[in-house]
């Protein structure tokens, strides 16, 4: 039995990398234990890339815009999948805890919500790389197009889209914490709501004026405009990069605050022990 005065004098670290590692290990065990799950991660990005790749080859013969931009559609689909997989990577790992009714055990351990979120982000990165890298490599062999030719700007696009996926996922998980598993469909649906205004395959200028405002409020629109600037003009747009990064920072702070508030409400309602299948 520890001395109670020693307990009172102790100081618990606000963030422990070891606990983040423990949670990453938990999700890795889950992933490696099921080859269909692992295969599914790469399946959809590969199918998307093939479909858009062949469409791109066809359109290159009929559209000067596509012909000028090389594989603008393939680059678009790979980067869009980065955003989708980034968001889904956080949401699915979060849902795993609800499906297995494990939150009660997790949050009587010293794990803090911030550490859990960090682990969800790390796992999202791993899942996204497993999903998108094979599709990108396949595009080199089938379409003779390497998204890696984008060079350093690719890192900037990738990072911004991952971060956007993370704050989107935090907002979705907050809604699930507040409303229970009845809201889990949001994990798959919300990102597609943003697809039309993210200007993945066409410029923002195509959209009606009133919708362009909404589009410019999203980091993804700046990323895809930036991508087209590299592909068509061979220039990296610092303006779009700064806008995407600034918007991501703003939304991440908001989503983080909302998540912590939702977690607090879940503790008030008893949702950490009651939420499950």
């Amino acid at each position, binding site marked *: *039995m520890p001395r109670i005065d020693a307990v009172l004098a102790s100081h*618990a670290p606000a963030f422990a990398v070891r606990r983040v590692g423990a949670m990453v290990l938990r999700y890795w*065990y889950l992933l490696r*234990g099921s080859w269909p799950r692992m295969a599914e991660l790469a399946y959809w990005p590969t199918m998307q890339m093939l479909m858009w790749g062949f469409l791109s080859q066809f359109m290159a013969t009929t559209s000067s815009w596509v012909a000028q931009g090389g594989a603008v559609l393939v680059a678009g689909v790979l980067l869009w999948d980065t955003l989708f997989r980034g968001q889904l990577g956080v949401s699915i790992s979060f849902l795993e805890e609800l499906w297995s009714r494990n939150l009660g*055990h997790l949050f009587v351990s010293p794990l*803090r919500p911030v550490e859990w979120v960090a682990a969800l982000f790390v796992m999202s990165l791993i899942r996204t790389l497993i999903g998108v890298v094979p599709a990108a490599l396949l595009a080199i062999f089938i379409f003779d197009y390497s998204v890696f030719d984008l060079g350093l700007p690719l890192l900037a696009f990738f990072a911004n889209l991952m971060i956007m996926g993370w704050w989107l996922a935090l907002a979705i998980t907050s809604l699930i914490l507040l409303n229970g598993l009845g809201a889990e469909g949001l994990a798959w649906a919300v990102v597609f709501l943003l697809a039309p205004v993210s200007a993945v395959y066409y410029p923002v200028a195509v959209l009606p004026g009133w919708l362009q405002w909404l589009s410019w409020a999203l980091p993804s629109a700046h990323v895809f405009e930036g991508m087209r600037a590299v592909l068509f003009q061979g220039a990296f747009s610092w303006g779009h990069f700064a806008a995407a990064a600034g918007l991501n920072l703003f939304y991440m702070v908001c989503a983080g605050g909302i998540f912590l508030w939702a977690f607090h409400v879940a503790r008030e309602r008893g949702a950490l022990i009651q939420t499950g299948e």
Partner: protein
Amino acid sequence: MSHYAIKTDRLTKRFKDVVAVDGVSFAVEPGRIVGLLGGNGAGKTTTISMLLGLLLPTEGSVEVLGADMARHRHRVLDRMNFSSPYVDLPHRLTVAENLVVYGHLYGLRHVKRRIADLADQLDIARFLDRPAGKLSAGQKTRVALAKALLNEPAVLLLDEPTASLDPDTADWIRTYLENYRRESGATILLASHNMAEVERLCDDVLMMREGRIVDRGSPDSLLAKYGRDTMEDVFLDIARDRRAGVAHAAD
């Protein structure tokens, strides 16, 4: 400074119009085993959830090992643990994988050695590599107990530790808990519907009904107070709102 292992003061939880726990105050001295008894919906699980910090009280306070759980919960979480048949470990992970993850979460230095010790003590070595979802009820209980004991907790909260177990396994678990308390000096709070278990294990008992503590004392003192031979009869007297001293007359 409180010298109690667990102390609550006017602990209350309301869910909209429903008062699940109503002004519960009690204190548990270090090294005691205390039973939290009551019928379904009496407020036991809600009380335990608030002690763990999983559920925030509407009013009142909880101290564990002297730390205010509202403000300094993270000072004591690595010194307490819990087990409940209603909160599962992830089904698709093996028993060993689950224990490794929790070992790291609790900051153990020698995770594998601790798991090997517990596997030996709790006789779970045979199914360490089996998915947690494919265990029998008895095996699940042993594994849940292994997880609850990973960090050698000074305060152990158990929600119906022998629910749905055969008498042999239940007896084995009770013996293990008795030994653990004797060897570690840990404080154990257990919610149970099994009165034989309570008589055997508990130094003190808190009887709950409709969110309130309606009686308390050692099993012997309650048996004497209600003029009964078994805790089962005491439980029925309290559950049916028969007051001590008039229980026999009511019968």
